[in-house]
């Protein structure tokens, strides 16, 4: 099966360790993620200003590229891209006045009316491949690994584009169990990681990160799994700042779900670009013997 795929800029640069294992894992599951031949940055953040149509141009153009491919479904792995594209899509579907203004402005493009379905890779795994098939394909069960699923904001908010009901989320947990690992359901699972505050207000950011790490650790997690490069940056790459500030915190390896899936499917560390994660990630994988078993 082939399906149109939108990686996003970050997955092509700083977060190749999310993109490469995702493409490899889906391939192992019999799905070819076909990167759109032409795409632009989606804008990363959906503008909340009601009259800000300018920032809709980028995501809508990407959706038009899907139609140009003769396709009507787009798989997105990055949570932020997913959120931005899905919300822009919804607006184009539902708001005829804004749709008209945007289509008129982009006169060099075909008109777009929200025809495409924007799907997050996690939903795609569940709905199009199915846990059963994934379970059958697991070669290196992540047995004994206690994983805290970290949703962050953009998978579950706002409700109109949430990949599942915010108060009854099971998708990440189901994936973790399918891979043979143990779910650590922790209360900070859907807290905000502080997002871009880490840059403009680093003290607040690091405090927020510390609380999330502390929560996951106190519930016994050995690792955190996420689907967002910004969450990974804050919880993973900036973790040292949190550890420096709080003696009681322990290092907690942070993974992308695509990396764990690739390992569980027996694809090995080669496709995972672990060198782009923060320290401690490979050590944990080795200590659990997940890398040699393949």
């Amino acid at each position, binding site marked *: 099966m082939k399906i149109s795929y939108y990686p996003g*800029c970050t997955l092509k640069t700083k977060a190749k360790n999310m993109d490469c294992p995702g493409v490899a894992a889906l391939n192992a599951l019999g799905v070819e993620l076909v990167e759109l031949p032409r795409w632009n940055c989606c804008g990363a953040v959906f503008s909340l200003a009601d009259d800000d149509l300018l920032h809709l141009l980028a995501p809508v153009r990407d959706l038009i590229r899907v139609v140009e491919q003769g396709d009507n479904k787009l798989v997105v792995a990055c949570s932020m891209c997913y959120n931005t594209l899905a919300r822009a899509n919804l607006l184009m579907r539902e708001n005829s006045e804004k749709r008209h203004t945007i289509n008129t402005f982009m006169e060099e493009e075909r008109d777009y009316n929200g025809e495409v379905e924007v799907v997050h890779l996690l939903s795609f795994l569940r709905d199009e491949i199915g846990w059963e098939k994934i379970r059958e394909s697991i070669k290196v069960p992540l047995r004994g690994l206690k994983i805290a699923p970290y949703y962050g904001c953009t998978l579950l908010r706002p409700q109109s584009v949430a990949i599942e009901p915010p108060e009854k989320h099971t998708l990440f947990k189901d994936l973790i169990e399918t891979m043979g690992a143990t779910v650590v359901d922790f209360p900070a699972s859907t807290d905000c990681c502080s997002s871009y505050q880490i840059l403009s207000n680093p003290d607040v950011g690091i405090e927020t990160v510390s609380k999330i790490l502390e929560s996951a650790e106190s519930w016994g997690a050995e690792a955190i799994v996420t689907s967002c490069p910004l969450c990974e940056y804050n919880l993973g790459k900036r973790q040292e700042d949190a550890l420096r500030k709080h003696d009681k915190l322990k290092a907690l390896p942070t993974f992308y779900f695509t990396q764990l899936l690739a390992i569980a499917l027996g694809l090995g560390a080669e496709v995972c670009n672990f060198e782009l994660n923060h320290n401690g990630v490979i050590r944990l994988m080795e200590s659990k013997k997940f890398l040699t078993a393949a």
Partner: protein
Amino acid sequence: MSTTDITKGESKETTSGKELVSIFVMGKKYEVPKNLTIMKAMEYAGYKYIRGCGCRGGICGACGTVYRKPGDYHIYVGLACQTVVEDGMYLTQLPFFPANRATYNLEAIGSDPEEVYKKYPELFRCVACNACTKVCPMDISVMDYISAIKQGDFEKATELSFDCIQCGLCTVRCMGEMSQYHIAQMVRRITGSKIKPESSHLKTMVDNIKTGRYTRTITDIKSMSEDQLRKAYQAREMEPSEAPEDWKPADNTYL
């Protein structure tokens, strides 16, 4: 001005007896022969090019021109040396536009996309309005090469931007205030020097230059008087516009 040869050095058409059209240069109306390029029409109208004119062959990018047509809201662009006047055309040339150009030592930097992002953080202000692509007189997909740079795909950006003549019209229109063509140049330099394999014929050519094979060309020209230089220029042999592949000049002293 009954018969004026304003086309010296190019095709030998003259303007006698031609039908006239009206154009507006910076708001002032002129009657000029139709079929002239904007550049020739402006010279016909009495403008003298000191700047804003380079190769007259559509490749140096010095004569970017913006115009409108009557009853049409679109902005049109073209190179003054290539674009033929139309009746009612409203135009101005933009020979120069201030553009941010970063300073860097190419030898000292690597091929990581970060090198470009650090020098040109404004890259990330692109909102995909596509005004740059629409304005490009070379029909380059400027927005797409900016996207490729943001995606870290320098080889794709190099391919897409290769025909850029650096006229700067994209920069004039950019609401993110970036200088696309300077950014692309940095990317092409990195691609050429650090990503693509070294080309052997280029190395041979550089060695030839270093060992002085072409030094005589420049010293001869530098030693000429203004009068000699003028004569040499006017007598120069140009490659015909539809020359065969194996065309060679009669005098190849300097090759």
